[in-house]
């Protein structure tokens, strides 16, 4: 391909060096909003806070393992809340545990998302008559995706994470994100 920067160029005519470079050197450039680009980066590398509380934690661990691999989605489980994007609340939320959950949520830096996994985290689950269970983690922290099941299958959790990825792109497209970086 010839790079011809042009002899007589005039701005406004479309044959300035910048235009030529753009047309000839970079034919495959894509333009997009920065928010969408960042959303693409964020959704492809979601680091989850390893926060398994009860039985759903075993299914969450199974999902990370080699049979239903979550690493191919870029999801890596990380113990420190300061370096995590998503908190998957897997298991029953007990009133004694409510304060640590709030502390962990506040320690996570923006942008952050929460997935409530299992029916106990959604609305109390089989323990809805209990004296010491918080009926759903959305009484404490805002939840983005609810994954029902008791416990949800690994495929269900993967679908939940994919729905979260779609939510991240849709929020960026609509630019109405409340915890955006702007």
């Amino acid at each position, binding site marked *: 391909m010839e790079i011809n920067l042009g002899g007589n160029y005039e701005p406004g005519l479309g044959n300035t060096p910048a235009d030529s470079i753009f047309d000839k050197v970079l034919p495959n450039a894509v333009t997009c909003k920065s928010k969408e680009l960042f959303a693409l980066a964020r959704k492809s590398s979601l680091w989850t806070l390893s926060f398994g509380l009860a039985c759903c934690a075993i299914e969450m661990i199974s999902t990370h393992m080699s049979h239903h691999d979550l690493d191919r989605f870029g999801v890596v489980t990380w113990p420190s809340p300061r370096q995590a994007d998503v908190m998957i609340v897997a298991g029953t939320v*007990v009133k004694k545990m409510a304060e640590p959950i709030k502390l962990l949520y506040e320690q996570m830096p923006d942008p952050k998302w929460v997935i409530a996994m299992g029916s106990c985290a959604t609305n109390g689950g089989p323990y809805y008559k209990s004296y010491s269970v918080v009926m759903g983690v959305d009484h404490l922290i805002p939840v983005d995706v609810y994954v029902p099941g008791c416990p949800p299958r690994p495929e269900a959790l993967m679908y939940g994470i994919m729905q979260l990825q779609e939510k991240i792109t849709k929020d960026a497209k609509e630019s109405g994100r409340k915890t955006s970086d702007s």
Partner: protein
Amino acid sequence: MRIQKNPTDETNSLDLMVNMGPQHPSTHGVFRVVLWIDGERIVKSEPHIGYLHRGSEKLCEDELYSQVITLFDRLDYVSNLNCELAFCMATEKLMDLQIPDRAEYIRVILCELNRIANHMLFYGAYGLDVGAMTPVLYGFRERERIQSLFESVTGARMMHNYIRIGGVKEDLPDNFERRIATLTEQLKRGIEECDDLLSNNEMFLARTKGIGIINGEDALDFGMTGPSLRASGILEDVRISEPYSIYERFNFGIPVGTAGDCYDRYYVRVEEMRQSLSIIEQAVQQMEKGPILANVRRITRPPKGEVYIRTESPRGDFGVYLVSDGSDKPYRVKVRAPSFANLQTLQHLLRDAYVADSVVILGSIDIVLGEVDR
């Protein structure tokens, strides 16, 4: 972290208080332990539990007997079938019910498969605690095989709700014999592979041999049971001392350790997996066709009375104390969880241990917070 003055130390040194909080990658669930350390040695430790206390025992008083089985599933959420079995056996003993033979064989086969799955999870998690990242993938590969068989038999991967009062819910599928034959072959190879990977590894031996030693009498005084007690040299297995179900018909060995350290607690479990495989093979050979549920009413109303049943769960002695007043809901259900008693030994084991060994010791006791807190 808080600094606290040690009153008995004449050198006027200070102890550091470190919190291994409820959210920690290696506390096996929501468990909190506060350590007072002097340099690298732990001076005092204080475990705090209750971060998963869901009130299951009180909830059982308001549910029918068949609904209580679903609550029991979620107690020891890694070996569910054993918990269901304990409760069903307690009710059947109160009612003096005779279970059909085929149901007993199905129960034993599934419980022993559950034992292997549980020990595979222990193997993987213990590898992670010690610092090895590979065993967990191998352990979970075997677990997935067992869970897919469970799915074909009971309908669910984890919370099965399959063992019912009077027998089991449904008969085995038609291809079960073929599947179990291939599964036992695969599991044999899998157990050998897992054993090969970790048990003779030099770093693993250095991290677990001679660490966290507990005496047999001390362990029994604390109420410790299961593989952790057998690693300290005491031969105590519920399947032998108080045989329940049809365990008397099988020929199996009980591995017993000698030193009582972390390595023995780990290796006893690896050997138990092999013994469980032999029980499964014998049971599949001996099983015959027949009914799978005794003649029971839809709503069970056991007679008035109380009973205490214990079963050998993969963690130890799982006991159920059931008090019935003749109605269709239990009057009081008390669960004696093995991890609850085993965890009391943690304070004793962590005295004068290194901080880096605390995770290894905690992992070797093999606790599940669902049954500790209930």
